[in-house]
């Protein structure tokens, strides 16, 4: 209760309530997340359960089209394997959000530690770590991800790949994007480490790790929070892109990206709904995260005050 009070009494909350864009995007995001993580409760059927899927139901149009084969069980129609689009999208969004958040957690862990060490220690170690980050940045995320996924699929085969696809995607996207965090954290650490409270901590004689994690890190978390929102959106998009070229989630556990891909083959033959609905869901998800991140950045950086 006190925690709740603290949140509702904070400036952040006050500012939030006065920004319709923030409220709107937060509501949409909350709705999407609750719907996707509550999919086993809300979804009309379970697309992972092979027994409920009937190939005869494949490619049914949404019910409001009035087509003769529209089925009242499938509000948004079905995909090429006979799974209801609505249920599959809910489960798929859960996969997408999991990958996005998981990849960002991994990125931020690696990036924050490397950035903190580089910024605080300076000298040769910093030069080494930051050049490493530059090298990593010069490969595009997709290139690294495509390379690793393709090699993994090639070595272990599609069957094993399907089992580990979720974890592998988190790892690949997480590793590919850590320099974003490392650079941001390093920059703020360099600004913080010369402040007098850090010198005071050194005068007390505190060990370096304690100064780094207890004194400097909490004061550098603001920009980390902001880029995290952007990075979650980026990671979800990376996953969707990888799935779209067939190197992401397998068709048996579809994410939004692999759903778009599976419908892409049928767009020309008139089954537009298979790609369109996951596409809209992806756009709305990314947009709400980005808008919320935008608001957070403006709130945390008063120098950017708009009129």
């Amino acid at each position, binding site marked *: 209760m006190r925690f709740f009070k603290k949140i509702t009494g904070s400036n952040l909350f006050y500012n939030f309530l006065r920004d319709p864009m923030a409220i709107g995007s937060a509501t949409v995001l909350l709705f999407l997340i609750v719907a996707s993580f509550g999919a086993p409760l809300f979804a009309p059927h379970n697309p992972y359960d092979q027994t409920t899927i009937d190939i005869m139901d494949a490619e049914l149009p949404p019910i409001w089209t009035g087509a003769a084969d529209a089925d009242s069980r499938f509000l948004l129609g079905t995909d090429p394997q006979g799974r209801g689009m609505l249920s599959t999208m809910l489960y798929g969004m859960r996969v997408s959000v999991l990958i996005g958040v998981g990849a960002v957690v991994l990125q931020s862990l690696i990036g924050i530690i490397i950035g903190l060490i580089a910024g605080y220690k300076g000298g040769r170690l910093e030069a080494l770590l930051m050049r490493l980050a530059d090298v990593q940045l010069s490969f595009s995320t997709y290139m690294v991800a495509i390379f690793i996924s393709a090699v993994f699929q090639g070595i272990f085969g599609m069957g094993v790949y399907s089992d580990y696809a979720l974890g592998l995607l988190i790892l690949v996207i997480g590793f590919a994007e850590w320099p974003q965090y490392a650079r941001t954290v390093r920059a703020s650490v360099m600004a913080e480490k010369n*402040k007098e409270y850090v*010198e*005071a901590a050194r005068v*007390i*004689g505190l060990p370096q790790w304690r100064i780094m994690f207890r004194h400097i890190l909490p004061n550098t978390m603001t920009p980390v929070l902001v880029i995290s929102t952007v990075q979650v959106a980026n990671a979800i998009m990376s996953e969707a892109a990888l799935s779209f070229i067939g190197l992401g989630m397998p068709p048996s556990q579809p994410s939004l990206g692999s759903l778009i891909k599976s419908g892409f083959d049928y767009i020309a033959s008139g089954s537009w709904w298979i790609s369109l609905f996951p596409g809209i869901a992806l756009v709305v998800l990314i947009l709400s995260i980005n808008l919320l991140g935008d608001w957070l950045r403006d709130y945390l950086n008063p120098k950017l005050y708009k009129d």
Partner: protein
Amino acid sequence: MSDFIEIKNLVKRFDISGGLLEEIRFKGGIHRKKTVVHALNGVSFGIKKGETVSVVGESGCGKSTLARCVIRIYRPESGEVLYNGTRVDNLSSSAIKPWRAKMQMVFQDPYASLNPRMTVYQTLLEPIRFHFPNVSRSEADDRVATVMKQVGVDPDWRKRYPHEFSGGQRQRISLARALAVKPEFIIADEPIAALDVSIQAQILNLFMDLQEEQGLTYLFISHDLSVVEHISNRVVVMYLGSLCEFAGTEQLYTDPKHPYTRALLSAIPRFGSEGFNHLRLPGDVPTPINLPTGCVFHGRCPHADERCRREVPALITAADGRVVACHGVEEGRLEWL
């Protein structure tokens, strides 16, 4: 009485040339060129137990660097710092721990010297728990309350964050953090420069009261000459990283010997004097990157001669105990002034 703190020939240089790529010069073949700031060039003096020694000088003369070398935030390039006869400047970071509790520092900017994400209680508890790990929680709490009372901050405010305090209160909390580990020696790096004039007096009085109560020894860094005259027993005058003169406060203020000290003291505004009649020094302070040869002051000294341009003046201890680094004073050719 021998010196409690002894600073011997302290030299500190900063490499400001940046990374390897920025060091490379192509003039006359490829070679590396380091750009070095000479922040301290052999500073020596001693502090007796229970006294206040102030260091004065203009901006950039190395006052703060000196403080940070003595307290081992920076490692000096050469020279020694002795605490009660024990050399502390070359100790490893674990071996120096017992001395960390005896020497503490108060910083200039009360807005930057407290961690904004820690409450006053956390800030004050941390050094106590670190240096006295065997102290029980309640004893540590008592100690926090005691130091807060000592500096005149209500212990009921310990759950507050630094931004909820005024500058003067924060400086008091800074001082409380230094006092928390029961130090004997406190370095104060311009502790009142960032404060309002009315608050300056309060904080100064606090410093002096604490010295009286606890027998503290201070190294006080300042550029405010009248404050220094008020609180110190002895004064060090620095110019461009070198010590010019070190003497008792009264000696120094009534009868400065070094030409730079004379110019500096003549700039204090006095009641009753008309207009500005301070000694004007020609030119500007030279860059500490390329130090002048000989005496660092020779380019601006009205009495400089050939020897001053050539030879670095040694520190000479006069019969009355004052230390001056000046060829002119040594040769006696400045005595008529």
